[in-house]
C-alpha cells in the first residue's frame, strides 16, 4: 500500500489514532438517538390522548401510531448503522492494517 517505508512506531501511532477516532465517531453517531426518542414519545403521547378521548378509535390509533413510530425511528437507525459500520466494518482501518 501507500504506507511502505513507514516505521512501525509511526504505524502503531496511526492505528491508535484511527481506533480512537472510530470510537469517538461511533459514540457521536449514536447521539442521533435523541431525535427519535423525543419524536416517538410525542407520537405515543398523542395516540394515548386520542384513545382517552375516543376509546372506540383504539385500534386505528394504535396501528397508525406504530407506523408513525417506525418512520420517526429511521433517522435513529441511520445513526445506529453508521455507529455499527465504524465499530465493526471500519473502512479506514484497512489502510493501516494492510
Amino acid at each position: 500500500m501507500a504506507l511502505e517505508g513507514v516505521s512501525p512506531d509511526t504505524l502503531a501511532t496511526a492505528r491508535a489514532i484511527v481506533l480512537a477516532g472510530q470510537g469517538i465517531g461511533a459514540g457521536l453517531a449514536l447521539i442521533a438517538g435523541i431525535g427519535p426518542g423525543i419524536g416517538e414519545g410525542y407520537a405515543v403521547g398523542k395516540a394515548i390522548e386520542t384513545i382517552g378521548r375516543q376509546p372506540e378509535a383504539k385500534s386505528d390509533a394504535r396501528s397508525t401510531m406504530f407506523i408513525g413510530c417506525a418512520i420517526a425511528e429511521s433517522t435513529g437507525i441511520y445513526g445506529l448503522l453508521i455507529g455499527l459500520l465504524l465499530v465493526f466494518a471500519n473502512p479506514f482501518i484497512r489502510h493501516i492494517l494492510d
Partner: protein
Amino acid sequence: MEMNVTGPGKIITLTFGDTEIAISETLVTGWIVMIILTALILWLTHDLKVKPTTKRQAAAEWFVTFFENTVRDMMGDKFVYYAPYVATIFCFALVGALISLFGLRSMTVDINCTGTWAAMTFVLITYWKIRNNGILGYLKGYTEPVAVITPINILSEFATPFAMAVRMFGNMAGGMIITTLVYGALTAASQAVYGLLGITFLKYFSIFQIGIPAVLSIYFDLFSGVIQSYVFIMLTLAYVGDAARTED
C-alpha cells in the same frame, strides 16, 4: 451462541472457473423458513370444510381474513388481490426473524434480504405510477412543482426503498449485536466467578447464561421481529396504495 456481527457467514463457496458464488447463512436459513412455511400451510389447509369444524381451519380463515381486511383498509376494495403477496412477505419476514430463537442467524440481519424486499416494493410503486400516468407523465412527475427540484425528487424516490431496507435491517442487526455482546459479557462474568470460587470442572458451561438472555430475546427477537415485519408490510401497502390509487 456465537454470531458474526460483520455479516452472514459463508456455508459453501461454489467455484465456476473464475467466478465464485457463496451460499450464505441467509440463503440456507431462507430455505429452512420456506420449508417450515410450506409445511405449516399444508397442515393448515388440508381437508377444508365449508363450515369450519376444526380450530385449525378457523385459524387459517382468521389469518386470511386479517390480511384481506388490512389490505382493504389501506388500499381499497379494488386491490384486495395484493393480500397474498403481503401475507407472504409478512410470514417470510416474521419466521425469518423468529428463527433466531432457535439459535440460527435471523434472515433479516442481512441487508441483501431486506434490500430485496424493499426493491420489490419499489418496482410495484414504479409500475403503478407508470401505469397510471404513462411513461412521460411518470418522468414529468419528477419535475413538479418546479423543474429546479428534480434532483431532490429523484433522491426522495430512492430514499423510500432505502429507508425501508435499512429500517428493518438496522432494528434486527442492532438487537442481534446487543444480544451477542450480552452473551459474551455473561460468559466472562461466569468465568470470573468460577475463578473466584476455584471451580474448574464447569469450564464450558456459563451459569449466568441461563435465563438472563431470554429477557432480551423477548424484546429484540419477538417484539422487534413482529413489529418490524408488520411495519414493513404496512409501509408497502401505504406506498403502493398511494401510487395505485387514481384521482377519481
